[in-house]
């Protein structure tokens, strides 16, 4: 199982802030996870359409799309940050 978190407009487009999912065996990295998520519904597809504006953290650290994901990971998807 993966713990998935969505923030800001990714959250509002997908419609939920958090979910736990069991991903297919073929999903081994962030890019694969995003591909799989896009097939889960229009909200996901729309939120993840343009990866130029999607950032990823695995276990609360920024990672590239090539980063592996494994059972037990906390994976967060969110837009570029705008605090301060």
């Amino acid at each position, binding site marked *: 199982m993966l713990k998935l*978190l969505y*923030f*800001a*407009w990714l959250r*509002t487009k997908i419609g939920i802030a958090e979910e736990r999912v069991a991903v297919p065996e073929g999903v081994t990295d962030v890019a694969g996870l995003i591909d799989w998520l896009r097939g889960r519904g229009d909200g996901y597809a729309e939120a993840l359409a343009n990866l130029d*504006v999607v950032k990823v*953290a695995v276990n*609360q*650290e*920024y990672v590239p799309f090539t980063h592996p994901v494994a059972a037990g990971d906390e994976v*967060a998807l*969110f*837009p*570029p*940050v*705008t*605090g*301060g």
Partner: protein
Amino acid sequence: MSVRVQRDDFDIGAELAALSDGDTGIGGVCSFTGLVRDLHPQAGEGPGTVRALTLEHYSGMTERQLEAIEAEARARWPLSSSLIIHRYGRMEPGERIVLVACASAHREAAFEACRFIMDWLKTKAPFWKLEDTSSDGARWVDARHSDDAAARRWE
């Protein structure tokens, strides 16, 4: 060194006094306070447009990122003490959002470190602003290219 992520406002005078209290080797304290603005120039909108701001954040990762940024600043400059306070939740125009303060024997280090922390915070700390606007309701604020450029200056 200290990082706080909180809903409540803070008292700048008390925070800055505490930062240098008891350390008479400190020559200067540089601080930056970020405030909620009521306008949105990027969207071509003038004063009065923004009625409120709601700051969402990634609890846990936020603290880790801010601590990492502060640690990086202390590795780069000789700081006696430093402080980052960032609020989340709903705020109205004029309210304080963030306070960064750096104390050092030397003013150059205090200025540089404070600006560095703000620049990295703007591009690395997982906060997102949702504006409540009079023109088109709730709107997520877009990241600014100028913030990316400012952060890259330090790499």
